[in-house]
């Protein structure tokens, strides 16, 4: 499902370059849940950004679901993220002006899904993440765990084939984080989604099909 070859990404000036990724290659099979672990600054987020087309590598290629991401233009990348790849952020990334249901519906609106279908799908997903009763609440009225659940529901709304999550439990307490991880594992299985999760949460690592350790921009081993 995901294939990356020779990914290199350098930030900063030429005088003091920061090699965020250095010749990284990896493959993720369909339906696989891969945990990317490493210390802060090791390159986890950069890897996820390159896989999702949010950033462009200095060198190397990325293929997602048969599409060469690195060859796509801005419009193509948007389409990719809208139809194929979904993100889950450490800070949830919910739109404060919208209710939980409306947040979940955003990807569907981007696809111009008819209202009835959209509402049905949103209700289904909110039930899936256990927030059916909180559909009309705004993000600032929800707890951190609930917000991340909404974020997961939103990530699944467009039926993506790839889920990229950047430390989804980073801002949650252990118990809540555990719940979110369990949910993530469950939806990956139930929705048949391929997931790459950047984390240093040991519990999540235990739930992953595979763990990739990354340090100084290189995959260990």
């Amino acid at each position, binding site marked *: 499902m995901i294939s990356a070859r020779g990914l290199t990404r350098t930030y900063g000036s030429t005088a003091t370059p920061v090699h965020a990724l250095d010749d990284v290659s990896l493959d993720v099979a369909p339906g696989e849940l891969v945990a990317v672990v490493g210390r802060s600054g090791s390159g986890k*987020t950069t890897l996820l950004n390159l896989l999702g087309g949010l950033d462009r590598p200095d060198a190397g290629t990325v293929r997602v679901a048969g599409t060469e991401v690195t060859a796509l233009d801005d419009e193509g990348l*948007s389409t990719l993220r809208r139809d194929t790849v979904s993100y889950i952020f450490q800070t949830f990334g919910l739109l404060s002006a919208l209710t939980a249901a409306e947040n979940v519906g955003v990807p569907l609106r981007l696809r111009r899904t008819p209202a009835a279908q959209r509402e049905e799908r949103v209700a289904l997903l909110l039930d899936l993440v256990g927030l059916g009763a909180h559909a009309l609440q705004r993000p600032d009225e929800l707890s951190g765990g609930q917000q991340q659940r909404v974020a997961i529901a939103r990530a699944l709304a467009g039926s993506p084939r790839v889920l990229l999550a950047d430390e989804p439990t980073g801002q949650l307490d252990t118990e809540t984080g555990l719940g979110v991880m369990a949910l993530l594992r469950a939806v990956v299985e139930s929705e048949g989604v391929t997931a790459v999760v950047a984390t240093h949460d040991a519990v999540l690592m235990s739930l992953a099909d595979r763990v990739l350790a990354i340090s100084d921009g290189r995959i260990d081993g």
Partner: protein
Amino acid sequence: MLVLVLRRARVQWRLLAAVVALVATACTLVGTCALVLGVTQSRGFDQEVLRTEPADLGVTAFLVDLGSEDAAAARDEAARVVAEVLGPTEPTQETTLTSRLRDLVADAARTDSQAYLLASDALAGRADLTAGRWPTASAGRTEVAVPDTTARLLGLGPGDRVGLGDERGLGGLDRRVPLVVVGTFRPRAVLEWERDPLGGAGFSPSYSDGLEAAPTYGPFVVDQQELLDSGSSINALRVTAYPSLELAGDSALRRAEERLVDAPGRLAAVVGERARLSRLASDLPRTLAHLHAQSASTASTVLVVLLLGVALSVAAALLTGRLVGSVREDERDLLAATGQGRRQQVLLASAEGAVLAVLAAVVAVPAASLLHSRLTHRRDLAAAGLAQGPVVTWVLVLAVCATAVLLVAALVVATLRLRPVADPSPRVGLARLGLDALLVVGAVVAWWQLRGQRTTPGGAGDVVLTVAPVLCLAVLTALGVRLVAACLRRGAALAGRARGFVAPLAARRAAERARASTALLLVAAAVAAAVFALALRSTWDTSQDDQAALRVGTDLSLTLRSPAGVAEARRVVDALGARGSPPVASPVIHRTLALGRFIGRQGSRPVLVAVDTRRAGSLLRGRLGAGRSWGQVGRALAPAAEVAGIALPHDGAGVTLRGRGPAGSSLTARVTTVLEDPTGFRAGVPAGEVDLDGRPHPLAWSAEVGPDLELVAVRLELDGPTGATPGAASTTSTVTATVSVPTAAPRSETDGPAEVADPWEVRPLQDQGPVGGATTDVRTTGGTTELTTSMEVDLTFFAYTGADVLTTVLPDPTAVPVAVSQDLVDAVDPSVGDELAAIVGGTSLALRVATVIPAVPSAPGEVAVLADADTLSRALVRAGSLEPVVDGWWVADPSTGTAAAIAAEELGTVTTREGLATDLARGPLRVAAPTTLLVLLALAVALFAAAVVLVVGADRSRASTGVARLRALGVSRRQAVRLLLAEHLTLLLPLTLVGTLVGAAATVLVAPHLVRSDVGAAPVPTPVVAWPWAAEVTLVAGLVVGVLVVTWTSTARLVRRSTPSRLRDGGS
């Protein structure tokens, strides 16, 4: 902590620079207004004083009836008193002495006529020598100069000798004054001649100073010392002091006004018994009050601008404070978490604020000084003499510092009070509702007070006039913004049903942001203020034009010092024709009258204005009301037809009167003719006294008779012994008088031969008199037109009363149709068709109300009537009132130079509508008002731009993170731009629209009440809103374009800079 503040300032220098710029901009406005209210108004006062007629600031001491031996001392004392009043203004003085009336001696024999001597040290400026020179002190006969009219009537010229005999009246000196004529002069119609016994006319057939009326000649102008040495009693001594206008500043004139209060007492004390009467008169208090009223009127407009500007600036400061607070929220929370107390926060913020305030003040003081200087160099202000270089005053510094402190305090408070926008609690909501209601009630009360503002001139410090507009604008803006917020909420709910992504999210986010009311208020208020400033300026200007139009009544008016004779009329006609084809013009009668028992209100008597109403459509100016024209009004007043009199030959040469009384009688006829010129001007011209001895006697015209005149009436005042035996039975005898007029050439080539088509009639002018049947007959034979009046006279009756008859071609108008002003209707309550009994100059007339008009041209806000000059003249002549009545001329659409040509004749005051409008709108004490409105416009636009930038660019960091996340969700760059554009425009465009509507509503509600006349009263006509459509459309379009540009630029930049690195930032 100071280190933290300094480091933070280094990091946030752009933000702090923006804050300083904002505060400095507002301070610059306040400083500029302070300079306008201070140095500019002061300079305006000085400039206005320089434009003032010296007579309006002069102080005159009048002394009446002085013995010759006391005159010199009394003159010196009076001079000292008036000089003391004007003190430091280094006044100049003029002295005029007029002798008692003396017998006129001709050929060494006393005549019935009288004359008087005059000495004045200001004569050279008020008369033109036509022959010879001015008199000087001489050893021999006293040298004199006489007016042309006197010289002509007495047959005098340089070198001729004449004498004045005994003084008339009780106690008069019996001492002749031998005179030699050394010059003749023509008086100019300037101020002082109206105080001459004969008004500068040179002759009056029957002048009386309280004694018996007699033909009077004069003045015989002599050297002042000669007059004093001649031993003549002084009838009137007048000493006038005029301030040097360059030195007549406000404080100097105020002190003069104070000294004026005691001056009459001082004058009476120093003159003592030497004069029978002493009086001190001055227009200075009235002039000063007028100048102060103008200044106050302008100041109130500037204060409105100032208050609006400060209100806008405070809103901007609050908004900026919120932005600063938002940017520093994390830091503040961190510091609070590390133990920083509230007091420390306040102290730190205050210290930083103080530095910002000082920086802003340091920038604003020179900026205001420069801006003020630039403003005063604008064409309008420079033309008013107000241009000046940069100045720094204490008032400027204080105003700037106070504003900087106020704004920075507001900013600091807003910074510290930042709270997340949340739904208010019911209690807070209720409190807000109450505050809203209170504001609305306050605005309504303020508007009501403003609406009921005084109609009379008022002084400075009008709080209502200053506060009401600001309150109304603020409340309307607040209501408008609430409306926008409500609409956005509703719109967001509706947009939620859309299938797409951009509209619902943009609407929802716009509705969400609409809860932050400060930004919205500022945007809408800035637009409203800009729209209001433009419309108020236009309304103000238009009202000044309307006031000028109604005040002048036409395009150009000449107001004579004294009613015009045929010579003055000729000069006016010549001046009008001097520049090509003459424009439409009309003689004007403008004087007070009594209406029945209504004689007017305090300080305001009913006014009669009469013009040639056949030309009203092109002649009259002033707003009439919808659907009406001056032409229509004129047609309701104009006479049915013109009349044709008997054309006189040039100079009236060859016109004779031949009369015959009963046998044995020695009757004489005093003849007064009424002559009419081609413009319809009529004036009575005395033509001497003629013996009715059966022989023709040439008429002795008392005035120059020019060409193209027609005789339209002859008055004969008969007197003398009839030869009848006293006490005998009553007998009736026939008296005839024939005026023979050599046939004159036609008035113009287009006229046909002189014809006498209109019927003449004769009517006795005595209510009860000796004249029975009277007939008249007009015949043209052998090149002569003869107008014969025959009457049957009761000789016994005649012996007691004489006879007084008028022969005229003027038909009887019965009642003079008039258009009455609305003020007259309010005062007297007549209806159309009613007749009003009026007294005009002692003559009773019947007026018929033909129509009602808002105001009579040249008599705004007065109880007044407008009549046709021809009809009125007919009525007056028929009533025996032959005195000159024409007080001026009105000219429509004068060609270039007409005003100068008429002014050059020095017949009176020339006023042009355009000139008056310029004075009212752009005079030194007025021009600041429209100019500061431009400053408000500029400030409003600047604050609007700042507000838009703040609204669009607020918290860019958080907005950037939001965009990055949206992009991660699959939103394309273009969609992100569209979303942000839609969000901002959904917020800003309705606010701009609402601001426009609020500005328009405030203009309609408030602007007409803010416009004041030059004396601070409500203007007449009532101001109406004048929309400067082009300017308003340009303004609003410009603002919208500005919004689009700022939004587009900011949004595109934001989206471009929203990188994946933002994805891990907190918030949403």
